[in-house]
């Protein structure tokens, strides 16, 4: 029998008559005196509530897509679909001249399913489309020329290529020169190494070796599970070391920036999050590997070759960015026509125009809009 099991057996049961909401009384009953450290039931419930809320708000506040989807579902889909379902469900008071109501509208009653379907299709498909098409297109881009280098920000791509080009030796075997350039680039990116303690430098030497080895293991753009896991582990190792370094050596200077490291992508060194530096290097490595593959077919010198690779990646990146916006726009424009097939607006089924007296044309429409009074609505009537 383990110590814990034996302890559990001897555990006292709290008296049921004690008011559990009072921490002092509860603690006293548990043998801790007035200065109890056991939270009351009310406190524990509050903590559980906060824990539950943070499991919702953590992804909603941190992940852009999660946040946009939460807003899309709760602030757009639900209110719009429900609003559409109930719009025109209750007939407004009959006008003085009942003949203004058409036969069709007179017979319609109940929930406005027609309108709700229109809104459902349109809203459900339009929010995710904003990410769907760019995701599809960039997954195609990653499989093409340059691999994940297309994900890099243009200024970073340019400055890193320039710096890499400067560091790559122009003599000897091209493939070896490209590798040598990569090994020289890594410590240049981590400018932190110039001032960091020796222990950190030793760690980074080993880290660089393993990193380069890891990135050469798989083909460009690989999604191999094991490889991805190894990359994540390697990133975590760096993150832990940086956290340790900052917490020990720069607790005040880098307050709330403990996961940042002094780095330079060919620009002025600045504090950057470790994850950003890591991902940038992983993505840039695909440019190096693409250039290495090209050396087998092309006789050009290394510098023009690297420039050529960079230009081609730039063109691919721009093309896929334009296509992402264009295809999404085309899809969204067509979606409205697919979802709203009815030739009239079903939301106004009980409220036909009647004796409408407005000017024609776009200007007339805006006049009508401008004339629409800002009234304080009759809540009782609306609720009914």
């Amino acid at each position: 029998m383990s110590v814990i099991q034996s302890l559990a057996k001897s555990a006292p049961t709290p008296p049921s008559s004690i008011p559990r909401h009072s921490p002092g009384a509860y603690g006293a009953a548990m043998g801790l005196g007035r200065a109890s450290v056991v939270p009351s039931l009310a406190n524990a419930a509050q903590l559980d509530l906060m824990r539950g809320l943070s499991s919702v708000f953590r992804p909603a506040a941190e992940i852009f897509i999660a946040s946009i989807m939460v807003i899309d579902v709760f602030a757009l889909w639900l209110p719009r679909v429900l609003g559409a379902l109930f719009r025109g469900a209750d007939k407004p008071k009959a006008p003085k001249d009942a003949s203004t109501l058409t036969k069709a509208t007179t017979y319609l009653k109940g929930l406005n399913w027609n309108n709700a379907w229109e809104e459902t299709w349109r809203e459900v498909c339009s929010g995710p489309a904003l990410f769907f098409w760019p995701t599809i297109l960039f997954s195609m881009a990653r499989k093409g020329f340059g691999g994940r280098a297309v994900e890099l920000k243009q200024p970073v791509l340019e400055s890193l290529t320039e710096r890499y080009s400067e560091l790559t030796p122009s003599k000897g075997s091209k493939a070896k020169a490209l590798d040598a350039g990569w090994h020289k680039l890594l410590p240049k990116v981590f400018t932190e190494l110039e001032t960091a303690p020796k222990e950190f430098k030793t760690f980074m030497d080993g880290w660089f070796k393993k990193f380069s080895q890891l990135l050469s293991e798989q083909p460009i753009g690989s999604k191999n599970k094991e490889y991805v896991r190894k990359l994540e582990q390697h990133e975590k190792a760096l993150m832990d070391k940086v956290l340790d370094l900052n917490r020990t050596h720069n607790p005040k200077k880098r307050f709330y920036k403990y996961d940042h490291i002094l780095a330079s992508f060919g620009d002025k060194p600045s504090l950057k999050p470790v994850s950003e530096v890591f991902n940038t290097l992983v993505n840039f490595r695909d440019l190096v590997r693409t250039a290495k593959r090209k050396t087998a077919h092309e006789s050009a010198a290394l510098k023009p070759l690297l420039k050529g690779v960079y230009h081609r990646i730039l063109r691919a990146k721009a093309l896929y960015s334009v296509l992402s916006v264009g295809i999404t726009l085309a899809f969204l424009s067509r979606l409205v026509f697919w979802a709203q097939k009815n030739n009239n607006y079903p939301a106004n089924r009980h409220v036909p125009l009647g004796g409408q007296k407005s000017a024609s044309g776009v200007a007339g429409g805006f006049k009508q809009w401008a004339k629409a009074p800002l009234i304080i609505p009759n809540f009782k009537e609306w609720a009914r």
Partner: protein
Amino acid sequence: MSTIDTTAINLKPAVSPPSWVTRASKQYLTFDSTVDKYFSNKEKSIKSPVLKKILKPIKSLAVMLTSYDFNHFINSKTPRARIAEPPLGALMLMMYIGLLGARAARGWQRGKPPGSAQGQKRDYREMLDVLRRDMWGITFYIFGFGVVNRLLVNRAQKRKKLILQNKEGKTYTFTQHDLNARLSSAQVLQAHYDKGNKQALLKAANNNSYMGVPQFIARRYPELRKQLADSVNVFRSALRNADFALATEQLEKLDTMRDSVVKQMSKNSTLTAKKLGRLTKQWPEYKDFLARYLQHKRIPMDVTSFGLLFVLIGYGPIWLNRVLTEHQYRKNNGMV
């Protein structure tokens, strides 16, 4: 007779100039920085401080509108994909044209009177519904939501005397609290104490929910409960006296006790991994007590700003459209 300056000759190896497609690609991807440079130059030439203040939001809006470089990708586990996050300029283009524009155009099209009925006017109500609902909704979502959240958090951090935002007014994420408010050393504890989290530290340390012994532990392990309570009380008094070395020592001690119990519990065959996971969630490491406290302090602001968003872009415009349509109906039928 002028002499030729030989030092000005470019001796770099010949690299073919980029084609017009490459130049255009670069211009497209860096349109935002071009706009930024243009406004920065304008800012320098303007002397009036009022005009400078006016120019600042225009500049940031213009930079936002012209960012088209896709460079944010998120790894999603289910479904396994690398999701592209559109830059703000591209997102605004897609939302204003693809959502608002297309819907308003359809509303305009559907407003046409049936057949070739003479004398009947075009019905603008759907188009106007769309404009009122989506123009406001998209604009508030893109520009207003962040501002509201920032103001709320800023107010709370001043009132409660704790740090929830950085100097630029950006609210710290939950992960940032996890990484930066973990009190792993005396230096970190002192940094929080000195940099503005003193009140938060003292309040969290005196709150049994964050720095205490969970009920299930207190009930099951009376011996351990007493040891933990002693350490907690020593920690509290050390923190009050700003003895950071002693306070950190107590935190280490508390976590060692916690870890040994969790380790022994994991050996217990009757305890499933799921139950153990839940248990460790209920009894997290003591070093993280400040991080959890700060995370929980931002939640009311998150709830409020999301609530506001639901009302302002969700239910509000729908309610307004309904009220306006019904008022128009009554007016046109001589009922008002």
